[in-house]
């Protein structure tokens, strides 16, 4: 799917040339997997309110919704069915969770009509996986998957899932890796720690661009983004290392590797010489 989003790296391609070649074989897989995660259609738990309030890049088609700057691709939510409008080729459900209401359209095939979907009626609680569409300024969900919620605990779980994901997008994953988003909400005290340690608003706005990167990649990008010489020559390796020393215990070899990978992904490029880097705008 075409991805005009400047946040995510374009497919492959070492950036900028210069002296750094993708020569080290071990680079290929960590860089590659980070890139795959960045481009993977992530499944985002949402509330209906979030869908109604999602930003829509005007002039573009359905695939341009974003929430807090993160592009919205696949979504999942838990809601109650208000009404079912049957049809030949598809079924339209009016759904609401306590935050709002929206239509969800589910395309039928022979198997689904007789199976689970037969049990979905007014008042059913359902789990939907789908994408957000808009037609005539009215938003609706294209439900790829819809099923009955049998355990009411799932409703509570979903609200917590929404909040946990919001925090992850805002402050990054708790571990260094882009690995699976299983950082649990261990309670308000931990979450409050995130809030207090939160960066200044300028860096917070920028860091949402890099949350999918692991450390020290994200730290490097954030440091460059906040550095006064960004866009104007960039910073050299020593400055970068000193800049993130207090935030990361990566050694210089790891930082060098991270810089190479970031260049490979097209996020940074060499400016004055091989050891000076700047962020790609």
């Amino acid at each position, binding site marked *: 799917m075409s991805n005009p*989003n*400047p*946040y995510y790296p374009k497919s492959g391609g070492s950036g900028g040339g210069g002296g750094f070649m993708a020569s080290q074989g071990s680079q290929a897989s960590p860089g590659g997997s980070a890139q795959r995660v960045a481009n993977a259609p992530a499944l985002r738990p949402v*509330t*209906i*309110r*979030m869908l*109604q*309030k*999602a*930003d*829509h*890049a*005007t002039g573009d088609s359905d695939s341009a919704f*974003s929430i807090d*700057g993160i592009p919205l691709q696949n979504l999942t939510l838990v809601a*109650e069915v208000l009404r079912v409008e049957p049809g030949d080729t598809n079924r339209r459900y009016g759904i*609401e969770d*306590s*935050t*709002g*209401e*929206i239509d969800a359209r589910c395309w039928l095939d022979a198997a689904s009509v007789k199976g689970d979907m037969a049990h979905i009626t007014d*008042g059913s*609680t359902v789990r939907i996986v789908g994408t957000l569409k808009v037609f005539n*300024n009215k938003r609706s969900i294209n439900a790829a998957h819809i099923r009955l919620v049998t355990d*009411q*605990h799932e*409703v*509570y779980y979903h*609200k*917590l899932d*929404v*909040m946990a994901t*919001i925090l992850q997008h805002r402050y990054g994953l708790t571990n260094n890796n882009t690995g699976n988003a299983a950082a649990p909400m261990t*309670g*308000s005290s931990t*979450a409050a720690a995130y*809030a207090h340690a939160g960066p200044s608003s300028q860096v917070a*706005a920028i860091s949402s*661009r890099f949350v999918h990167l692991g450390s020290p990649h994200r730290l490097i990008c954030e440091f460059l983004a906040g550095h006064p010489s960004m866009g104007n020559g960039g910073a050299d390796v020593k400055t970068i290392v000193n800049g993130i020393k207090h935030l990361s215990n990566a050694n210089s070899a790891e930082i060098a590797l991270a810089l190479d990978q970031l260049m490979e992904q097209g996020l940074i490029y060499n400016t004055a010489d091989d050891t000076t880097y700047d962020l790609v705008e």
Partner: protein
Amino acid sequence: MSSRQRSSTTTTESTGITAPEVSSAQLGSYVGRTVSLTVKILQLLGDRAIIEACDGGQLEVSLRSCPDVHLSNPYAYIKCHVNGPNAVTLLSAKDLGNLNFPVGLVDEMVKMTHEPRFKEYFWGNKKAQ
């Protein structure tokens, strides 16, 4: 940053039915509105019931609007209209059976959804929508 214009319809249009989930302590701020509550059914008294909300606050719920509703023990997820800080009228109920975790956790969750950092994603910051 890429251009990120808000489509004009989203900022002014309401999101439809909202029935914020609240604790009993917050009912005072939602008088005249519909809210959702996770409650424990304490007593059924014909056209009323005594219920306990997730924060332990007990209140009376009028069943006049739902004469046929079947409130089973012990827990239910109800939508009701708030007449006053301690008086609500039932609109709909969903049976939860037994919760396999202490109901205090629901209270924690509800409090979190009302925190400034999350409120916009759930209930919005305006008082009446």
